[in-house]
């Protein structure tokens, strides 16, 4: 029965073309390893005097995942850069087109893993439009409540990453304490810490339970105080403020032209918020402000950072209102098990913590969508990187990148 033991790696031999000899390793690897295909490539991959390429990523501590950025640097100054995407391309859209409508919710969940509930919300809303489903009001309130909780968690993580990319070790740990409390709370009602799979077509998976409510009550009693204490570590810190101010300024025109949404456009002075501009769910019934920062010249990294902190305060307000105004009733509409919507198309967008997240669905009358498309805000915001990082220092690339708050899962889909 004993099988012969095979060594894992074959013994290297010079004949094997897969094995690179030591003599070959010493040579420079050409960047890129092919002749330039476009004018832009030819321009980028031509080095000027005193310039060199610095390949940042796909594994780099501060690229927020697996983004690869080829920097052309002159000393410490970034002359030009070329982001390379696709290291996390998982084919989510195609997978969704091959899943039935219920299954899509779990497929799209890890798309942008920091704010999963919003990834569920948009397709669910699109399907509801497609099938003319009336969602119970309690379900809508629950969606808003859990969504705003997750927005706080997401912004807490943003704050921690921001500090980590600027070299601060401690704030991310405080943020994670806050985030852990929220995700454990959500786990009490959804059943998972990160990829919740909670929203359903026509409602939510389960009603709020006692465990969730008690944890939420505990948390609400100290949320605001804890938030102010945590941000006190960085907000007034001279080093932090000096590094963030006037770095990566996005003016209003650029923001509009590039299709920036979410906190990034509000930090540039434009009060665009999907929750107010194209109201959905029960947001019209709730009172909250759309915080805006940035002067006429647009907003810099510090504005984007501070605006997210403002949003946390607004989210706490919304949660408070939800808890007071939540009606009783069912949390699920009555629906058939197997969904075959009429042929048609639907678009739905939500305000995710990173901006406008939308899905576009075309149904051909079967139980699977004919086409399923995702509009992700991170992808749009990443286009700004080339513009903002140029002529800055290497250290600023991290500040700018972190302040835009991209998530590679959403960018690469």
């Amino acid at each position, binding site marked *: 029965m004993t099988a012969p033991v095979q060594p894992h790696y074959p013994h290297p031999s010079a004949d094997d073309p897969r094995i690179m000899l030591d003599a070959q390793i010493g040579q420079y690897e050409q960047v890129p390893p092919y002749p330039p295909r476009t004018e832009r490539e030819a321009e980028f991959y031509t080095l000027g005097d005193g310039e060199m390429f610095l390949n940042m990523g796909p594994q780099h501590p501060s690229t927020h995942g697996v983004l690869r950025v080829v920097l052309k640097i002159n000393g410490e100054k970034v002359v030009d850069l070329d982001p390379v995407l696709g290291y996390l391309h998982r084919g989510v859209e195609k997978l969704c087109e091959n899943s039935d409508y219920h299954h899509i919710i779990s497929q799209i969940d890890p798309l942008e893993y920091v704010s999963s509930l919003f990834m569920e919300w948009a397709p669910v809303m699109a399907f509801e439009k497609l099938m003319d489903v009336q969602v119970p009001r309690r379900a809508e309130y629950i969606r808003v409540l859990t969504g705003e909780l997750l927005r706080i968690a997401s912004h807490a993580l943003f704050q921690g990453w921001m500090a980590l990319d600027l070299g601060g070790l401690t704030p991310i740990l405080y943020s994670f304490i806050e985030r852990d409390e929220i995700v454990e709370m959500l786990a*009490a009602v959804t059943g998972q810490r990160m990829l919740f799979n909670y929203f359903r077509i026509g409602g939510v998976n389960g009603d709020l339970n006692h465990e969730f409510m008690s944890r939420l009550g505990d948390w609400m009693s100290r949320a605001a105080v804890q938030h102010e204490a945590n941000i006190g570590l960085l907000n007034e810190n001279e080093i932090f403020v000096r590094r963030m101010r006037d770095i990566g300024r996005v003016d209003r025109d650029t923001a509009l032209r590039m299709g920036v949404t979410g906190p990034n456009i509000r930090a540039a002075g434009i009060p665009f918020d999907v929750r107010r501009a194209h109201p959905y769910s029960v947001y019209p019934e709730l009172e909250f402000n759309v915080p805006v920062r940035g002067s006429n010249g647009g907003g810099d990294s510090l504005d984007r950072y501070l605006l997210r902190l403002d949003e946390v305060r607004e989210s706490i307000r919304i949660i408070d209102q939800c808890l007071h105004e939540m009606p009783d009733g069912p949390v699920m509409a009555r629906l058939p098990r197997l969904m075959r919507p009429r042929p048609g198309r639907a678009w739905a967008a939500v305000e995710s913590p990173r901006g406008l997240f939308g899905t576009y669905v075309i149904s051909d009358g079967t139980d699977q969508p004919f086409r399923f498309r995702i509009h992700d805000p991170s992808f749009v915001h990443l286009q700004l990187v080339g513009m903002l990082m140029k002529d800055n220092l290497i250290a600023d690339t991290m500040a700018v990148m972190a302040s835009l708050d991209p998530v590679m899962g959403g960018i690469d889909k």
Partner: protein
Amino acid sequence: MTTVPGMGLVHGMGLTLRRFFAPKATIMWPEQNADVAPRFRGRLQLLYDEYGTLKCETCFQCAQACPIECIDMGGVDTRGRFHVHWGPPETYGERREESAMRRAGRPVADAAFTRFDPMDVTPVTAIAEAHDFEPKDLLPMLEDIQAAYGYLPVAALKHLSRQTGAWYAFVYGAASSFKHLRFEPPTMPAAAPAGEGLRSAEAGYVSALGAALSGKAPA
């Protein structure tokens, strides 16, 4: 920014010093367990209903849906006709063996990739080829196989699963949900419905179960 330069730094250092003496947030796992919500999905356990019966209906849907195919289960289907075993050894037998040899220099501890009785499966290949290996044509294929063998042998189903790429549970599920498909050779009498001939064995079980539920020791 504060009016006095450097006050922000002092403020931050004051905060960290206060946290230095503050009680720690760490949950000393594994000595002390975190407060995990009862609804948390990440645990594996078989649940019993109010009557103390296993809720599991052996539908294999969970094994089929498990993303990492870690659910390894064996049992009888709801109609009491046939034993099925579904689990990673079936699907990943070869790979596990290779991986284990590479990693630990020894075969896997549970060499469960056991085959059923060897039989000639060329007709199955021919049938699958005739239907272009399309999993959507599963029913015609199964009918053809039954026409060829007189019944649906396990080896044929497995072979069909491997040929078409459909999960075995999928193939088996399709086969078991049609009354005109059978798993026994026509010469053998069809198995009685679930538990009909086994009342005596069941009675002992039920009494033991009742005793266990009521807290009394079995007689």
